[in-house]
């Protein structure tokens, strides 16, 4: 009898131990229970550190964007960790501007029990990698994907970057009012998801505004010699050339256009929104018009503080990608504090409740489509700097 009893005790004890193991395994990490805190909003206190993963293009074609993003995230991390209540641990991994590499980075984050994933840098890459997080139920915040359809991938995919569909119509409208556009030539690289979707938005925005498209010229995302395309464009004598391209193509395109004596304005998509344009195209970049999600000239307290801190830490001013990355961490912090929990589903729920959050980008709300809403700004390159077109 005694023997039977002791066996029963041992058995039930081991069942308890097993149950304990499996319950802590549910959250995907050893500290899953610790990710729930007490209080809410500013008074929220979470004992464990909330793990955030970022997949950024630190090498490859989009490396110049990824580098800015990393700086923005790290600056935000310092600011957030200086506050009381919730501490974050940020892991940045390189997606190599390569969808396959991004997929394995995402798989790694999913397996590591990361609360939220930021990234990847390019829309093209995002379409391949983000479904992995959606399937595993890990919330993703895209901080630079602007293609249509990113957030349609599932209810765990959010973004704080304005879409091309939000920015480009505003750009075209402002340019039309200012320059009196009647007919334009459109150029785009037709083998990249981002530039292709940018082109579609440009096309429909131009139609809506009653601007005639006299010619549409396609090129490859890897092309660097645009002289013959530009000569063709010049022959149609357009009022402006509207271009959907990444910065790698934008710089040679702009330089070669000016060299061929095309002095009409060039209107670019979000890919043009990079200080490298002025640095590497020099004089040729003057007069290029770019719509942007972030206005460096904005004097909101959030933006001035961000610009000052960035300049102090890195010795150079931020760009839009850094600003969106910084705002991304703020949004995640807000989402974590709403339910005072770093659990994946709680963060997802928190992200749906972001409303009028003050950030360097302006006052951000996340709408029912999980896209960010805030005003855009139309810029023109003047004296080697982006100025507001007005």
């Amino acid at each position, binding site marked *: 009898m005694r023997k039977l009893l002791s066996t029963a005790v041992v058995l039930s004890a081991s069942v308890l131990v097993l149950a304990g193991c499996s319950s802590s395994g549910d959250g995907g990490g050893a500290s899953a229970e610790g990710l729930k805190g007490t209080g809410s909003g500013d008074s929220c206190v979470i004992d464990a550190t909330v793990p955030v993963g970022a997949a950024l293009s630190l*090498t*490859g*074609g989009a*490396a*110049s964007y990824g580098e800015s993003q990393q700086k923005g995230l790290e600056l935000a991390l310092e600011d957030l960790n200086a506050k009381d209540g919730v501490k974050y641990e940020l892991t940045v991994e390189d997606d190599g501007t390569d969808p396959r590499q991004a997929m394995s980075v995402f798989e790694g984050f999913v397996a590591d029990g990361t609360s939220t994933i930021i990234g990847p840098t390019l829309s093209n890459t995002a379409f391949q990698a983000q479904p992995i997080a959606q399937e595993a139920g890990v919330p993703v915040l895209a901080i630079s994907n602007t293609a249509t359809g990113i957030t349609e991938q599932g209810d765990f995919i959010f973004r704080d970057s304005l879409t091309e569909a939000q920015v480009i119509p505003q750009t075209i409208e402002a340019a039309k009012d200012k320059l009196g556009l009647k007919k334009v030539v459109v150029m785009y690289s*037709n083998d990249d998801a981002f530039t292709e979707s940018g082109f579609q938005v440009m096309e429909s925005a131009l139609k809506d505004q009653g601007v005639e498209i006299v010619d549409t*010229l*396609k*090129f490859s995302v*890897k092309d*660097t*010699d645009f*002289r*013959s*395309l530009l*000569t*063709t464009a*010049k022959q149609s004598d357009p009022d402006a050339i509207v271009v959907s391209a990444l910065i*790698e193509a934008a*710089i*040679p395109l702009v*330089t*070669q256009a*000016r*060299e*061929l*004596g095309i002095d009409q304005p060039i209107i670019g998509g979000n890919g043009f929104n990079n200080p490298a344009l002025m*640095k*590497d*195209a*020099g*004089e*040729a970049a003057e007069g290029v018009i770019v719509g942007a999600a972030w206005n460096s000239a904005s004097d909101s307290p959030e933006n001035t503080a961000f610009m000052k801190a960035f300049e102090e830490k890195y010795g150079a001013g931020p760009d839009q990608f850094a600003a969106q990355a910084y705002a991304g961490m703020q949004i995640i912090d807000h989402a974590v504090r709403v339910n005072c929990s770093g659990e994946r589903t709680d963060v997802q729920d928190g992200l749906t409740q972001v409303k009028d959050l003050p950030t360097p980008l302006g006052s951000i709300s996340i709408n029912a489509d999980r896209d960010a809403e805030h005003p855009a700004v139309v810029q023109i390159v003047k004296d080697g700097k982006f100025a507001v077109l007005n």
Partner: protein
Amino acid sequence: MQQLLNGLFLGSIYALFAIGFTLVFGILDRLNLAHPAAFAASAFFGIWLSDSFDLPIALVLVIVFAFGAILGLIIERVAFRPLKDRPDAHFAGLISSIAMGGMIIALLQAVFGPNTRRFPVGTVPDDAIEFGAGVTASVLQIVIVAVSLGLMIGLTILVGRSALGRSMRAVAENPGAARVLGVNVDRVTATTFAISTALGAVAGVLFALSVNSAQLGMGSAIELKGLAVIIVGGMGSLPGALVGGLIIGIAEVFAIQYVGSSWRDLIAFGLLFLILLVRPQGLFGKRKVREV
């Protein structure tokens, strides 16, 4: 008219690249597939020179020419010479030169990183010269054509008139007989590689200047065009490479103008098949009779 000029500029870079390619083939009967990597390496090296020492572009071109020559010697020594006595030396050299090219690119990535790099703004004056009726050429483009033509003419004279050229032609004809007649075949081989790669190196810098960007993969983008050029022109023929380069360059440009930009490569490479059908030896090539 402007398109013709665009084609001429593009074509002269293709030609300069292809002439280096075809020189090694014509004289040594070897295909050096490390050539595209040397093309990229030289562009990066040239940009580094410009960036770090603020040298005038003429001096950069001279140094890059020398850099290319040294690189050529290394490629020959590492990838080709150890294999020269093997019965399958052609094929073995082809493959080992691909390996060499891969190593050069990996080294470049380690040193310079993967980002696109550019010559600093103002390396070449961006003035444009107008030929009336809206046809313009930049100073840079004229420099490109002048440097390309100059090097090609210089090379033709070198091969046709000089003592070194005579040895080269002797080796091309029959390496064994040349050796018996007292020609230092190893030295001629090394020199040929040096000249070939030096031309490719200058082409790399000119290309990077022309499109205002240099990427690690820039060589592989031009490699197929270069092969098309030497086939169109005739394997091993120097004037053939020049004319072939111009033909491919102009064909591309006009394909964009009249057919559509997505069809560019289709037209350029279609032309290759067409010429091979009509004139299998290429425009300037001679029919080779192979003795067994």
